[in-house]
């Protein structure tokens, strides 16, 4: 398995926090996460919000695996829904087949905490907007679109969110992927 560790400093902004957890951090929901993903590392960078009991993103092996569709398909002009902890930046910056990377992030707090510290080059462009309501510039087209903005506090179910994104953005791209959308890893 693979893992990409990110280096975002700890901090709090509004309802969001970047924290550095360990495998011994005594938070029940964090321990459930580690168990569910069979994680074995000692240190993690996590993004939390007060509206969710579990971190909403972490630089874990499970996280890397749940982005595998993106790693496999990223090429040309890439659209990313969700900045998170900048994990996509850390991986995609070394991909020479990518022309541009447009990232949409809804939370100014997350932007303030992460964007100054995450990896990026002149191919990266950040837009502060709600992906569920944002109107892309007319005739915009991307080679791939990756959606990872759904969290458990979203009033939409994950499937409803996926349906909404497909309906809204499929005219801009024919190759759309979602976080965690790979088939189950039956070999554990």
């Amino acid at each position, binding site marked *: 398995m693979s893992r990409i560790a990110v280096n975002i400093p700890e901090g709090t902004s509004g309802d969001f926090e970047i924290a550095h957890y360990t495998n011994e951090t005594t938070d*029940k*929901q964090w321990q*459930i*996460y580690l*168990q*569910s*993903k*069979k994680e074995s590392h000692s240190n993690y960078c996590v993004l939390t*919000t007060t*509206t*969710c*009991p*579990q*971190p*909403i*993103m*972490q630089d*874990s092996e*499970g*996280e890397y695996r*749940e982005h595998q569709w993106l790693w496999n398909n990223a090429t040309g002009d890439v659209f990313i829904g969700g900045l998170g902890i900048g994990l996509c930046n850390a991986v995609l910056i070394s991909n020479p087949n990518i022309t541009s990377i447009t990232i949409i992030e809804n939370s100014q707090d997350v932007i303030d905490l992460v964007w100054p510290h995450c990896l990026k080059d002149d191919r990266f462009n950040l837009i502060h907007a709600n992906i569920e309501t944002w109107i892309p510039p007319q005739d915009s087209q991307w080679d791939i679109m990756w959606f990872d903005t*759904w*969290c*458990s*506090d979203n009033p939409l*179910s*994950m*499937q409803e969110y996926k349906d909404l994104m497909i309906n809204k953005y499929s005219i801009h791209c024919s190759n759309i992927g979602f*976080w*965690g959308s790979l088939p*189950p*890893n*039956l*070999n*554990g």
Partner: protein
Amino acid sequence: MVIGRDIIPIHIIDTYTQFPVSGGGGGGTITLATKMTGGLNNCCQVGFYSPASGAQDYSYSNGVEMGGNSTLGTATSPTRTTQEFDISCSSLLSAYTAAGHSSFVIIIGGYMRHTGSSISSPSWQDHVAGSVYGVEVISASLSNSCTLGVAGRTQDTYSTTQDCTNLSTSNTSAAKGIYDYTGGTGSGATMWEFVFGSGRGASSHPVAGDDMTFRVHASATVDGSAVSIKHDIIINFVT
């Protein structure tokens, strides 16, 4: 309930009906049943067992399914018996809320009946490709990032016995259907494990419409001839 075009529903209670099994020339066959006598033939015991310390029980499946809620049938290509039942998502959620586990394991048990005069080498651990012991995942449609993985906590004690009907909840009892739960380390000594989705703010659960199908492979020697059987367990998640 979903019944494929090649599935013939049947309801058999305390009846010993034979379905074709592969191998052998002596005429003796095997079937899987919930108990040694009585119970249901062509049916297994199925339970979702919480493996974590404390509250070890089958609450995730609202108890052990003994066939009373199952629709039994047969199917072809390959020839097999089928067992289909529903799991309530609300029961699953209640059990999760009470225990807060990240996963549970799928325990399968039963009794290997035969029609010959003698049986030997009973086995629930045919290691067909993709199986864990003799249990194969045929399909799994699970929402919200829930997955099936494997858990390595068993050893081979019971999977080579005819009687695997003990689905104990005792921490000190090793028997959990075809699995010996004492914590084996042998290769292949694992079970299927359902893992709740997580990673975006909370643990997540399957929804109505999700389903899982497991295929149990069992074999034995009956009256000197090798025979085997396949049994599909189809679990539908409902509201």
